[in-house]
């Protein structure tokens, strides 16, 4: 059974009387328990829009999104979900442990358990030495790492990560990758978005390719490569996107 699901999920951003930007168009996704699922797409393809709709930060124009069979506003469901936003911003007047403690309290964790968890997480993301440093003095990579720790504070069943490796150096990327694989071994479900093909290639069980708000292809990497007669992910990526653009150009050409 799918643990995360979207049905004909559509988001149009209304900017003016006649100006509408398509964020997402009729997207059907099913993400299974225990897998790492990657949403792949160029900038502006609707990855962030899709994740925000799932989490109830945006509301769909039509269609629906569910996590564990619950709608995005469900409080009980959020108890089991962790989220890392794109280029995360945090309360920069707090230090690492204070930030994590604040989030832990919002999950109603009791303070002994929270303290233990915070120690573990700071160890895990290697920010133990920066305990007293306010977040406004953090580097981009450190922010990304504290963000990862924050998204894990409640030991979530489902982890949703928007471009988790954007600000990281190669070693940070590798560590994150290993962490994700370890979490998968623990039975967690991970949904991530990325425009780094190699990252996705190495960790994801299944992928979806987004472009201009449309879902172009979804499946296992091997399956998709066969289906599109592609040699590797890059080839697949370029093929599906070019095919869509040609079709798109033809359609809009007709209309003119």
């Amino acid at each position, binding site marked *: 059974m799918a643990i995360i699901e979207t049905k004909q999920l559509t988001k149009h951003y209304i900017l003016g009387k006649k100006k509408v930007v398509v964020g997402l168009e009729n997207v059907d996704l099913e993400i299974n328990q225990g897998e790492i699922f990657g949403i792949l797409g160029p900038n502006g393809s609707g990855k962030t829009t899709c994740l925000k709709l799932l989490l109830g930060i945006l509301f769909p124009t039509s269609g629906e999104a569910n996590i564990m069979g619950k709608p995005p506003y469900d409080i009980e469901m959020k108890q089991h979900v962790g*989220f890392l*936003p794109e280029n*995360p*911003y945090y309360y920069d007047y707090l230090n690492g442990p204070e930030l994590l403690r604040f989030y832990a*309290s*919002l999950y109603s964790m009791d303070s002994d358990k929270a303290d233990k968890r915070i120690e573990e997480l700071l160890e895990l993301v290697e920010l133990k030495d920066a305990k007293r440093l306010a977040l406004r003095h953090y580097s981009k990579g450190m922010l990304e790492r504290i963000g990862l720790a924050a998204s894990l504070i409640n030991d979530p069943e489902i982890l949703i990560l928007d471009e988790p490796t954007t600000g990281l150096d190669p070693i940070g990327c590798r560590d994150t990758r290993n962490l994700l694989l370890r979490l998968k071994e623990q039975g967690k479900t991970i949904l991530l978005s990325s425009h780094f093909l190699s990252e996705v290639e190495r960790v994801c069980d299944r992928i979806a390719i987004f472009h201009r708000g449309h879902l172009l292809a979804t499946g296992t990497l091997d399956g998709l490569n066969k289906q599109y007669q592609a040699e590797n992910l890059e080839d697949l990526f370029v093929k599906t996107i070019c095919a869509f653009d040609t079709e798109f150009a033809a359609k809009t050409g007709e209309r003119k």
Partner: protein
Amino acid sequence: MKKMWLIGVNTFRESIRKKTLYIILIFALIVIGASKLFSFLTAEEELKMIKDVSFSAIEFFGALIAIFASLAAISTEIERRTIYTLLTKPIRRSDFVIGKFFGVSMIIFVNFILATAFFIGLLIFKKSPPNMDVFKTLLLIFFELILIGGITLALGTFTSDAFNIICSFFLYIVGHLTSYGKQLIERTENIIVKGLADMLYTLVPNYENFNIRDKIVVGLNVSWGYVGYTIAYGILYMCVALFIALYFFEKREI
């Protein structure tokens, strides 16, 4: 309930760490302190002066603090995108709005108390400990400040930072001119203008109601009935503002 409290406390902590509000508070203290420099006045006149200036300073700088604290509470949280990490936690949007209102009220309260303590200290130093009238004036100023905060908070749920600041200050000024407005309305003949003006008069928060310092300073009496009525007006108006905030924030996309 617990979560509203947590959000409120975090908001309060932010105001302490960020220190921007201290500057406003320090200004208030300087102005209050300066009011006793008028030593060429007779003792009685000097006391009037201290009260007049101090009440005005507590009210005006308090209003600045209320507006800037409320602005930071919602508009800035949205603009800086820290809100993503909050609203994806198991909290309701209503918890967020009411929690922020708690937090802002705490900020207003603490700053108000600090400025007031300084003022009362000054009165005691001048051998004129505060009486009931001083207390009434301060009480109404406090409720005015809470109302100002609530309104800026409500505006923040559906406007941008810049628009919110302009609106809040506009309401602050117009809300203090309502008694002039009332006189103008009574003199107009045109029914449509009169109707519109009447409507505006009812909609704009009547901050001037909370101002009894002019009377108190010259020794006029203000009844507890009036104080109670005005506080009730403030609370009612604030509830409406909060409902508006809850309504708009429930639907807000971020």
